[in-house]
C-alpha cells in the first residue's frame, strides 16, 4: 500500500489502520492534539500512520472538524446533536476510542457526554456489556463492594 502523498500540496496525509489515506489541511490536523508534534516537522510527502483509527472514524472526525459552526453556541449544539444522532452504540464507542486517542478538540467531550447518556442509570450488567468488561470479582467480593456504597445501587432503568 505505498500510496504517495502529492508533494505539491501542503496537506497532511493520515493513514488509518485499515490502510486508507486521508489528506487534511494543517488547520484540521492541528486539532488532533496527539499528532500535533508530528505535523511540525512533516513535509508534504509525510504520511502519518494512525494504528488505532479506522477509516470510518477518521471520516467522522474530519466531518466534525470541518462542519462545526464557528459562531453561535445554539448552532454548535444543533450541529453536535445531528452529528451523533444516527450513530449506533457500537459506532459511538469506536468513535469515542478514536477521538480519545487522537485527542480531538471538542469532540472528546461531546463523545464522552453522548456515551455517558447511554449508560446513565443503567444496571451494572448493562454497563459491563457496553464496555466489554469482564467481571473478575468473586461473588463475595462484589457483594462487599456493593455494601460499601449500598445507597447507589437502588433502582435502575430497564436495559
Amino acid at each position, binding site marked *: 500500500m505505498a500510496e504517495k502523498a502529492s508533494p505539491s500540496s501542503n496537506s497532511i496525509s493520515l493513514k488509518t489502520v485499515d490502510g486508507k489515506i486521508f489528506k487534511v489541511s494543517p488547520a484540521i490536523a492541528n486539532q488532533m492534539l496527539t499528532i500535533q508534534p508530528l505535523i511540525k516537522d512533516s513535509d508534504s*510527502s509525510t504520511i*502519518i500512520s494512525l494504528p488505532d483509527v479506522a477509516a470510518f472514524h477518521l471520516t467522522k472526525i474530519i466531518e466534525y472538524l470541518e462542519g462545526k459552526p464557528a459562531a453561535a453556541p445554539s448552532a454548535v449544539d444543533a450541529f453536535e446533536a445531528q452529528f451523533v444522532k444516527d450513530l449506533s452504540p457500537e459506532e459511538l464507542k469506536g468513535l*469515542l476510542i478514536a477521538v480519545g486517542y487522537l485527542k480531538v478538540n471538542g469532540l472528546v467531550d461531546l463523545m464522552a457526554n453522548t456515551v*455517558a447518556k447511554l449508560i446513565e*442509570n443503567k444496571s451494572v450488567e448493562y454497563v459491563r456489556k457496553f464496555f466489554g468488561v469482564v467481571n473478575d470479582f468473586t461473588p463475595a467480593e462484589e457483594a462487599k463492594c456493593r455494601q460499601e456504597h449500598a445507597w447507589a445501587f*437502588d433502582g435502575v432503568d430497564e436495559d
Partner: protein
Amino acid sequence: MTEDIKKVNQSDHIDRISDLPINVIDGILQHLPIRDIVRTSILSRKWRYIWVSIPHLEFGDEFFDYCYNRDIEHQIPNIISDILLGHNGPISKFTLKVPCYFTYRITSLYKWILFLSNKGIKVLVLVNHNQVDSIPSHLFSCQSLTSLKLDQFNKLSLPHNFCGFKNLLSLHLIHVRIDSNALERLISGCPVLVKLIISHCVGFDCINVSAPSLKVLRIYNEGEIKSIVFKNATNLTDLALTMSRHINTERGSVTDFINGLPKIERLHLREGYIQVLSSGNNLRTLQNSTNSLKCLELVGVDFNRSGELLFIISLLKSSSILRELVIKSYTVPVVPPSDYLKALYLNSYCLSHLEKVNITVGTAYEHAVYLIRFLLASSPSLETLTFKVGLGLNQSDAPTLLSISRDLLQFGRASQRAEVKFVYHGLT
C-alpha cells in the same frame, strides 16, 4: 521521493481499561451523576478504584432527589463524607446544592470545606436552600480558588486573618447577608477578579473598592445602595445594575461611576437606575461612557415619565457604535405621548450601527410605536426589530392590533433589509 511514514504509537503508553484510554474514562465519568460514578466501582477489579480520583464532584438536585425518593435523605451527610474521605487525588471542582425540602442540618459542611481546601479546590459552588448555616471559615483559606459561587447563606463574615483569594477570577454571591465592610474587604482581596455578580444580597449599602481587572459587574438588588464606586475599573466591559424604584440613591455617585468606564460595551439598567439616571435636567448624563457601547438593555422603563424617554434618546444619540437595543416597559399608560416624541422621527439622526432592536411593552404601546417610528427612520443597518405587546387576549384588542400592524407597515425605513416582527399574546 521516499515515503516518510511516521507512526503515532501510543499503545504502549496508554493505560487501557477494557479498551478505553484513561482520559476517555475520566471524560465519561465527568458527565455522569454521582450514583452512576459510584456504580462503576463494581464493574471489575480494574474499575474498582478509578472513580475515586475523579476531579469533579457534584451533589446537586439529581443526587438529593435520588436519595429523597428512596427515603435515605438522612444518610446524605454521611454519603458525602464517605465519598470525600475515600477520594484520592486533587478535587478541582465541588458543587453542593442543598434543596429547600432537605430538612437535616448539614453539620459537616465545615469539615468538607476544610478537606477541599487541602485538595487544591479551584471551582466551588455552594447553594444552601435550607438556609441555616453561615459560611465555614475554612472557605477563606482555599487559596487556589478561581471561581466561587455562594447562594443563600445567612452571614458572610471574613476571618480577621483573611488574606484574600489571590487567584479568584469569578465571584458570584446570591442571597448572602454581608455588610459593607466585609464586602469591600472581600472584593479588595481578589486582585485578579474578572467577573463579579452580586444578586439579591442584603446587609450592605455601599461599595467602594478598587477593581482594576474587573470586566463583568452585575449588581441585582431590590434594596438601597447609597453609592457604588469601583475605582480604576477601566477594563469593565459589561455592566448590569438593578434596583427598585423610589429609592434614594445619590444620583451623582452612580453617574460618576458609569462615566468613569471608558470601555463599557454592554450596559443593562433596570428600574431604579433608569429613574435615577434620567432625573434632573442634565441629559448628557452618560456621554463619556457610551463611546464603545454595543449593547444597551433598559428594563422597566416608565413611559409616563418623559425624562426616561429623553434619557433613552440621548443615550442612543451618543452611542455611536451601538448594535443592539433592548427596551422593556411594564407601565400602564397614563400620560399620552408628547409632541416631542411624536415628531422624533423627523430628526435626521443616524444610528449607523444599530442592527437589532427588541421592544416589549404591556399596554403602553403608543409611546413605543413612536419610538419605533424614530428607530426605523434612523437606523440604516437595521436587520430585525421585534415588537411585543401585552395585548391580544381579548377580542376587543383586535382593532388596536390591526392599527399597530398598519403603522408598522407604513413607517419609513432607513434600512432596506430591516425585518419587523410584531408579536402579541395568543398569536405570533
